[in-house]
């Protein structure tokens, strides 16, 4: 009887097993090749057991169990002079024998390969066998049990995977340190004399329980439980399972978002702590420490005042990492995946470093952090850009004058209208950071002048004073323009008109010292559909004037381009970009030139275009 069953299984699944064994042989060869410089060929065997073993197990269970019960052919077996227990036992042992035969062959091959490079003792081989067999039998018993769950097997695997993910990622408990998995960690290749007794004592009872569970399912109620589980899911079950699957996933996502991250802290930083606000500047070679201390104090005071003005509940710790490799007027904010706070990089103390602009940048980033990035959305970004500059300039006449000059230069580049504010990211991309911030500053100045001090503050408190909820409630917020009108009594068109009326005394004079530069880009076909891009900058007042060419080929749907996204060529003369592009490629190009009169870099000829 047993022979008839085994020959049936071989006839039915033989070619699949053969294919799986061929894949295994190939995988072992690759793993041995990969492990040739890793200390021992048995590293390859450990990987083989950990990866191929479960894969072969899943294939075996799918063929031996799922196919039999799913096709209800076990009902045919029940009509034959056979007991259910024998059918199940034959299947279980047949699959396990194939699995262990494949693993045993792999071990023999690995030992043969390894014998020329490492010492292979019988004890070591026994340990390897014990560990790999224990692990594989455990996984096989688990997969067999889950296979008998029939229509719920995917649910069970899904739950296990989610559980493993939570265990590993959220609880920070690496799975390969847990008994059955630890048996086949790569240390198995090097543990030559000691048996992992504790691991084995955990694994064997688990395997026994899973085997008992499998027989329980198959034999319970004269096989009715197994047959019932093998039926297809009803639509109602699918819905319930779907909801049950989504709930923990949603919970995990919420956990991820809500989990409070530890605050970032930079050890050995120059610290300034003022009324609960912490600002630190990292120490670096050639950093002027007294200057850094002053800067930290100034930033801390800026933030203390900001908290009081806007009624912010908290201010995150701010840390500055000096980085001399950056341009003086380029500041970057770091992404912190595992901690909370605002961390920025800047070339503190470089000739082009403008302290006020940097303080404004910090204010900008703190508000971006506080509003969970909502203040940086396109329809309201102008307010954030302008407010950060205004917050610093309101007590600094020199900085205010520089901003005025920059705003005048910006006005010559772009004629301010309502659409320019509503599509602020495009406007800013065209103007660059320096002129863009200055133009936004002028709009915020207009807001404070038109609305008055108190309504302006009420509006800003309403906009940023409460940390927005991190869920769908933000969809219920009123649009910015509506709140601007309701609270400050000012409309966007009022602001635009007011800014347009600023030119008057001195406005022309402010812009006269700005170079009239003209950047040009031209695509020239090299051959076929391939183009190269020539650039030039006309109007330079000296031949050796440096400028930077910025460019980036654009992917579909690419929205905001930050300066970090852009490739850059620093040059002093017209030339060709170091890339070739195909006909039809979308590309962004711009030139940036330092302007002494504005004390910042201005952007010229910025545009997105299609190479033809």
């Amino acid at each position, binding site marked *: 009887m047993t022979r*008839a069953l085994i*020959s049936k299984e071989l006839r039915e699944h033989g070619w699949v097993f053969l294919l799986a064994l061929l894949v295994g042989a190939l995988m072992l060869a690759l793993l041995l090749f990969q492990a040739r410089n890793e200390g021992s060929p048995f590293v390859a065997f450990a990987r083989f057991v950990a990866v191929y073993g479960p894969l072969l197990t899943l294939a075996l269970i799918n063929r031996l169990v799922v196919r039999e019960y799913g*096709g209800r*052919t076990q009902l*045919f077996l029940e*009509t*034959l002079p056979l007991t259910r227990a024998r059918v199940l036992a034959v299947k279980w042992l047949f699959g396990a024998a194939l699995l262990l035969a494949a693993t045993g062959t792999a071990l023999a091959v690995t030992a043969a390969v390894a014998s020329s490079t490492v010492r292979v003792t019988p004890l070591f081989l026994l340990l390897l066998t014990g560990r790999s067999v224990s692990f594989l039998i455990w996984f096989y018993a688990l997969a067999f049990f889950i296979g008998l769950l029939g229509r719920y097997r995917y649910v069970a695997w899904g739950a296990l995977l989610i559980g493993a993910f939570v265990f590993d990622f959220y609880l920070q408990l690496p799975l390969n340190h847990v008994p059955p998995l630890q048996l086949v960690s790569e240390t198995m290749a090097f543990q030559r004399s000691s048996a992992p007794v504790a691991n084995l004592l955990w694994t064997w009872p688990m395997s026994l329980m899973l085997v008992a569970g499998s027989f329980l399912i198959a034999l319970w109620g*004269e096989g009715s439980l197994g047959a019932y589980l093998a039926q297809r899911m009803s639509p109602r079950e699918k819905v319930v399972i779907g909801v049950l699957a989504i709930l923990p996933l949603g919970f995990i996502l919420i956990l991820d978002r809500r989990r409070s991250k530890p605050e970032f802290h930079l050890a050995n930083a120059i610290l300034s702590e003022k009324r609960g606000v912490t600002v630190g500047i990292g120490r670096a070679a050639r950093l002027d420490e007294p200057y850094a201390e002053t800067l930290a104090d100034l930033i801390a005071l800026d933030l203390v005042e900001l908290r009081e003005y806007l009624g912010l509940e908290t201010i995150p710790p701010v840390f500055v990492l000096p980085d001399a490799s950056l341009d003086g007027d380029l500041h970057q904010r770091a992404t912190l995946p595992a901690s909370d706070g605002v961390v920025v990089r800047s070339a503190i103390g470089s000739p082009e470093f403008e302290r006020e602009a940097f303080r404004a940048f910090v204010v900008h980033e703190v508000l971006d952090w506080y509003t969970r990035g909502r203040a940086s959305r396109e329809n309201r970004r102008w307010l954030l850009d302008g407010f950060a500059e205004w917050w610093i300039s309101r007590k600094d006449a020199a900085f205010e004058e520089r901003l005025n000059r920059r705003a005048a230069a910006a006005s010559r580049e772009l004629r301010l209208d309502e659409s320019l504010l509503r599509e602020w990211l495009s406007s800013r991309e065209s103007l660059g950071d320096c002129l863009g911030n200055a133009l936004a500053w002028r709009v915020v100045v207009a807001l404070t002048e038109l609305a008055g001090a108190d309504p302006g503050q009420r509006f800003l408190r309403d906009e940023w004073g409460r940390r927005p909820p991190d869920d769908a409630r933000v969809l219920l917020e009123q649009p910015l323009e509506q709140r601007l009108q309701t609270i400050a009594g000012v409309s966007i068109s009022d602001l635009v008109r007011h800014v347009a009326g600023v030119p008057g005394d001195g406005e022309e004079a402010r812009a006269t010292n700005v170079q009239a530069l003209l950047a040009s880009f031209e695509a020239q076909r090299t051959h076929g559909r391939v183009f190269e891009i020539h650039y030039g900058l006309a109007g330079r007042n000296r031949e050796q004037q440096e400028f930077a060419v910025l460019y980036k080929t654009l992917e579909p749907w690419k929205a905001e381009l930050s300066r970090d996204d852009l490739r850059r060529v620093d040059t002093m003369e017209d030339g060709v970009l170091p890339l070739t592009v195909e006909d039809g490629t979308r590309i962004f190009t711009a030139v940036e030139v330092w302007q002494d009169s504005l004390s910042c870099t201005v952007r010229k000829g910025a545009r997105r275009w299609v190479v033809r």
Partner: protein
Amino acid sequence: MLAIRLENVTRKFGKVTALDGISLEVPQGEVYGFLGRNGAGKTTTLRILMGILRPDDGCVELLGSRVRHVSVALKRRIGYVSQEAHFYPWMTAEQLGRFVSGFYPTWDGAEFRRILRSLDVPENRRSSDLSDGTRAKLGLALALAPRPPLLLLDEPTAGLDPVARREFNDHLALLHKERGTTVFFSSHHVGEVEQLAGMVGIIQAGRLRFEGEVLELRNSVRRLELPSFDPSAIASVGIAGTGGEERESGEPEQISVTADPDLASGTAASARPNGDAGATEGRPAHAEFALPPGFEKIRGDVYRTEAAAWDQTAWPEGTRISRLTLEEIFLAFARTDDVRV
């Protein structure tokens, strides 16, 4: 010797009682037709006999042995054809035969091939490519090839077209004639039972309503139509009572008339002399006819008793007694209100 004996066998599935104390006996060499509606308990009975299910209570005897659990050795002496054939779809008839032969020491390969040929089952076509009828015939061939002394067939012809059903049944009849195999088959096709079976059992809602020879069943169950009574004319009606004694007209106070809805559907009535239930002034008189002991009402006007009792009873004048076909008898048994589906 009995091939099958069930005594008070009960089987429940949760709250549903599939078999409710069923008892039956099948003599060796007999063809036993097991009639019942869908959900009556036929398949459960057969699965208990095959050892696929166990009874909750009661006693099962197979081929002379009392069994609590049908052993592998006993299963080898039973051929079983299930209602739905769950053959391996990738196996041909020949491969299935080879596979099944491994479980039966008495397997007769030549006989298997002979049955396949006679039933017109292709040997080398995969079972998934066979029609339902051919698969049923293949199932019969697999069940018969070990030459079992007992054959259990669970609605083997369900879903077959009339031609295939006839072929199947003819073959079964022939095999029974040649070998004398005991056949216990369930069906809800009465004609099939009439064609093949010497004995019949009718199961309804988990209870055996009748068991016996087909001829005995037909003789014992008849339709009884008693004469209609006009209550206003009761005084002129002569009533035959229990003992056949005549009552004179002009004694309406001693006779009452009733419309017995169970017995006579309202217009027909039974009557019996009833001095106790005297007439009440201003109301119709009341008369009843009491059936003698031993009559069992099946349904409506269909009654069952011993064949002789139908002829020995003195019926009121105008009473009509008619014989029924087996199908009508089955319908009378089957149309009850306690049917589980």
